[in-house]
Every structure is written in structure tokens, then in C-alpha cells.
């Protein structure tokens, strides 16, 4: 089944493949596998981030613990465990201890429906490389990850301290603002796939990854996912210059480590979601997907067995690299700029795009039209509009800043036009000395009431 060859999709909201038939030992094995995968990904992502940012800043980065410093994050974790576990006197003790658990558990749980690959054989059992799948899998991911916000809010609130409270408020306002744009960007994908099940969505991208026909959705999601995970340039809840550490300022030891873990797992989760919904999930990239394709094996060699896990992890790591790249490149936004992008650009653009997609689809279902061409064009135009609107804002701001600098350059007046201190008798305002060459001060001078004019000005008139 491909996107552009079929007409009406059958009501295929059920997951593709068989789920819920695994024996218990296999379920536990997969769950442990996901757990280990996420912890290892976190340790590697922290190392990867520190090394890459170091290169971008002409440093070397951690290279002492283990080969190339690979075990640095593990060493940091052990060190954190040996630090004193502080519970501040003003803290609400129960909530303070509960908050890191509440942040970390949903981060793990969101991964239950992520498809790592197709059907494989584990100890003689044919099973999908995915813990489970639901008809509402993506909705489940959104629901579970929003529980993580409670962890952040309660951490800031229960600390009994000013900075964590402000950080938590900012963080929650930020996450819910960008969750709207994120949720809207999924609608077009569901429209194309006819399903919210992750395995079915991957299945529908056999011939064409959704990032190509749904480019605006992909761009909106990519922007929103950075805001959603509180990462640079949207890392306002952790703006060190304003808020010290944000919501986790009062946390230490392994409680702090849990917040750190949750943040990185959330990064991996949003990257996985981007991969699954827009970049074909575990499917091999285009030229490789053709290897070994024949009538007997329509999927080809590299889309079967354990190979897809490789593509899956590679795609996730590309997104994580982009996260690191953004952090190494862009300065932090101001809070009002950040909220403006979310509420005034991303939301209306995504709503318009959803309507455009739906309209095109409704029209082409009955009228035969080359839908792919149409989508690529409309998508391209909307992507350009999106980029231009961003650029327009930046330019307008720069023009404003440049204009503000130009005004004093027109003629600096140390006496500020005689206000609030009028010139003493015998003293003349320097602004009027170059009256003939400066139209700005001339206009300003003529607007003044006659009583305040000095003798030089009076002579000219």
C-alpha cells in the first residue's frame, strides 16, 4: 500500500502485525531491552553532546574515562550517587521526593509503542520488534509525555525556593504551548496513514516517507520538538543567567540524575517520534531499500530481519546530532519571542496546512490528479512562507535596532535640547550650532515654543 497509488484508504486504524500474543517472558525481555536501550542511549547522547559541542568550540571534550571518553557519563552518574542527597528545609518533603520519579517514569513509558523493526525471530518465537502497539499509539505517547510536566511543576513548587518555582512555571508554559503545535503537526500524518498506530504509520511509508509530501508538518514538528524538550535555543527554563538551574536547582545526588535522565530520554523519544511519523521509521533509506528486492521478497534484504534496527538508531542519532548542533550554534531566545513563535506562527500555519492537506485529499479522492506533484508544490510553497515569515520577523527586528542606532547619530546633543536643564544666560545649545546641516534638530527647534529659543536661533529666524 502506498500513499499515492491508493484511492480511499480502508479503515486501517488497527496496528499492522500481531500484538498482544507474546508469551510473558518475551514481554519482560522486550521491556528490559527498551529500558537498557534508553539508559545506554542517554549515556551515549551525553558523551556525544559533550564531544561535539567541544569540537564546535575548539576544545577536545572528555577523553579520559574509557576509550575516547565513552564511559565519562557512567563515571559522572556514579559520582552523583556518592554526593549528599539534600532536601531543603523549606521543601514539601513528600512531593519533593516524588517529583523526580514522576518525571522519569513517563519518559520510559512513552517508548512502549515505538517500532524498532519488523517481525523477527527471538528464541524461535516470531514477534514484532516493538513492545506493543495500540490503535491510538501516538495519542498514548502524547498523553504519557504530558504527565512528565507534572514532575517538573511539582519539583519547582515543592522546592520552596524562588528560582525553581519560576523555572517550573516557565517550563510548563513552554511545554504546553509547543504541545499544541506538535499535536497539530501530527494531524496531517494521521490523515495520510489513516491510523494512529505506529506500526501502521511506518507501514504506510513503504514507498514515500511522509516528510516529503508533508514537509511543513515536518518542519513544524521539528521546531516544536525542540521547544517541547526545553533544549537550546528554547532552553529558557534553564537560563542560567536568570534562573540558576531552573526547576531542579534544589536537587542533588541521584534525584538530580533522574531529571537529567528524563530530559535525555525525552530527547530520544521526540527524535523517535519524528523518525517514525516522518522519516519512514525503521525503513532503510531510499537506495538501500532497493537491495535484494525481487517478486519473492518485495521488502528487500535490508528491510527485513534485524537490519531495520540499524536504520532506526541511525535516524534517531541524526536528530540528536541536530539537537546538539542547535545548542552549539544558536543563542537562547527571549521568552516573549519564544511564545510569539509558538502561538502566532506555528499554530496558525499548522491549522492552515491541515486544511490545505484535507482539501487536496478530498478533491483528489474523486478527481484523478497527480496528487504527489500537487503536494510537493503546496508543501514547498508553505515551507517557503514559513521561512519567509521567520526571516521577516528577524529582519524587522534588525531594522528596528538599526533605526534606533541611527537616531542619535543624526546629531548628539549633550544638553538634551535644553530639557530638563535650560541653558544658563550666555550659554548656547550645541544642537543649534549645526542647524543648517541637521534637518532633524531644525524640526525639533522650530517645534519649540518661542520663549525657550536662544539668541542664536532668533537671529537665524
Amino acid at each position, binding site marked *: 500500500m502506498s500513499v499515492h497509488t491508493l484511492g480511499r484508504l480502508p479503515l486501517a486504524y488497527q496496528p499492522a502485525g500481531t500484538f498482544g500474543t507474546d508469551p510473558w517472558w518475551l514481554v519482560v525481555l522486550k521491556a528490559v531491552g527498551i529500558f537498557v536501550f534508553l539508559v545506554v542511549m542517554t549515556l551515549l547522547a551525553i558523551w556525544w553532546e559533550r564531544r561535539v559541542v567541544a569540537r564546535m568550540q575548539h576544545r577536545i571534550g572528555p577523553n579520559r574515562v574509557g576509550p575516547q571518553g565513552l564511559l565519562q557519563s557512567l563515571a559522572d552518574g556514579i559520582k552523583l550517587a556518592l554526593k549528599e542527597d539534600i532536601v531543603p*528545609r523549606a521543601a514539601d518533603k513528600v512531593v519533593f521526593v516524588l517529583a523526580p520519579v514522576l518525571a522519569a517514569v513517563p519518559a520510559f513509558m512513552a517508548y512502549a509503542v515505538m517500532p524498532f523493526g519488523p517481525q523477527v525471530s527471538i528464541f524461535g518465537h516470531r514477534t514484532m520488534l516493538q513492545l506493543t502497539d495500540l490503535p491510538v499509539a501516538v495519542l498514548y505517547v502524547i498523553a504519557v509525555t504530558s504527565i512528565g510536566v507534572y514532575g517538573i511543576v511539582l519539583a519547582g513548587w515543592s522546592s520552596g525556593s524562588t528560582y525553581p518555582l519560576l523555572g517550573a512555571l516557565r517550563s510548563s508554559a513552554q511545554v504546553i504551548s509547543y504541545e499544541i503545535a506538535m499535536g497539530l503537526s501530527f494531524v496531517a500524518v494521521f490523515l495520510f496513514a489513516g491510523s494512529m498506530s505506529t506500526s501502521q504509520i511506518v507501514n504506510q511509508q513503504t514507498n514515500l516517507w511522509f516528510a516529503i509530501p508533508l514537509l511543513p508538518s515536518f518542519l513544524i514538528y521539528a521546531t516544536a520538538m525542540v521547544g517541547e524538550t526545553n533544549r537550546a535555543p528554547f532552553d529558557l527554563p534553564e537560563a542560567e543567567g536568570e534562573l540558576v538551574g531552573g526547576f531542579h536547582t534544589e536537587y542533588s545526588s*541521584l534525584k538530580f540524575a533522574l531529571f537529567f535522565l528524563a530530559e535525555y530520554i525525552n530527547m530520544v523519544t521526540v527524535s523517535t517520534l519524528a523518525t517514525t511519523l516522518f522519516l519512514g521509521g525503521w525503513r532503510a533509506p531510499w537506495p538501500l531499500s532497493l537491495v535484494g528486492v525481487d517478486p519473492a521478497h518485495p521488502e528487500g534484504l535490508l528491510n527485513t530481519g534485524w537490519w531495520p534496527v540499524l536504520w532506526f538508531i541511525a535516524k534517531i542519532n541524526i536528530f540528536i546530532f541536530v539537537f546538539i548542533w542547535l545548542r552549539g550554534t544558536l543563542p537562547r531566545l527571549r521568552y516573549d519571542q519564544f511564545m510569539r513563535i509558538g502561538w502566532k506562527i506555528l499554530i496558525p500555519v499548522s491549522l492552515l496546512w491541515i486544511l490545505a492537506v*484535507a482539501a487536496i485529499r478530498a478533491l483528489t479522492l*474523486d478527481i484523478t490528479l497527480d496528487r504527489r506533484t500537487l503536494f510537493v508544490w503546496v508543501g514547498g510553497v508553505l515551507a517557503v512562507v514559513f521561512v519567509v515569515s521567520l526571516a521577516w520577523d528577524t529582519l524587522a527586528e534588525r531594522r528596528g535596532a538599526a533605526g534606533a542606532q541611527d537616531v542619535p547619530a543624526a546629531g548628539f546633543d549633550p544638553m538634551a535640547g535644553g530639557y530638563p536643564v535650560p541653558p544658563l544666560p550666555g550659554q548656547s545649545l550645541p544642537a543649534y550650532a549645526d542647524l543648517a546641516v541637521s534637518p532633524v534638530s531644525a524640526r525639533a527647534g522650530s517645534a519649540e515654543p518661542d520663549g525657550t529659543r536662544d539668541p542664536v536661533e532668533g537671529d537665524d529666524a
Partner: protein
Amino acid sequence: MRRVNVYAPILVLGLLSTGFAVVSVVAGSLTGPKRYNRARLDAYECGIEPTPQPVGGGRFPVKYYLTAMLFIIFDIEIIFLYPWAVAFDSLGLFGLVEMVLFIVTVFVAYAYVWRRGGLDWD
């Protein structure tokens, strides 16, 4: 029976991660040193005397409340959009027209909030 089994693995992963998180929190308080220091238990404010906090966190800008209210409106809109998107092909043109009417209705409220400055953060 089958339905239960589809959701059960989520519970397994949830129990596993809860166990890990709880063990970490407990272990953190056991493995670290414990040396009493009055200043260390104060709220951290870069070394100055902490600002006294009213019980329950005190006041914060009403902007956050407004953002949360707006979020609820749009979140509900999204929840209506999802099933519509999944079933779009069987609804056809009828579904499109209905959804345009709905989105336009919400858009009126959105435009109003925008004009009244509800989306400005100063």
C-alpha cells in the same frame, strides 16, 4: 482477552521504570554522605539570604494562567481533529466541510484573543 494483552506490556514497562526510579531515589539518600550544615538546607539564592516564601509558593504572573486556559481550548480542538483525520477517507467532502466550520469557529476566538493582546508576552 486480546485487548488486555495489548495494554499489559505497557504496565510491565511502567513497573520496571517505577522500580528503577524508586530504587534510585532511595539509593541516593543511602549512598551519599550526611553532614549537617544549616546553610546548606536553606533555599539556594546564589549565596544571599533566601527570600522568605509564603506557604504554597506565593504569587506568580497571571500570564501563565491565561496560557493554560488557551492551551485547554486548542488541546480540545486537537482531540477532535485526530479521529477526524483517521476516518477522513470514509467521511470525504462532508467531513472536510464540517471540520472547516469547526476550525473557523475556533479561529474566531483565536483572532479575538490575538487582537486583545492575550498572545503577547511583555
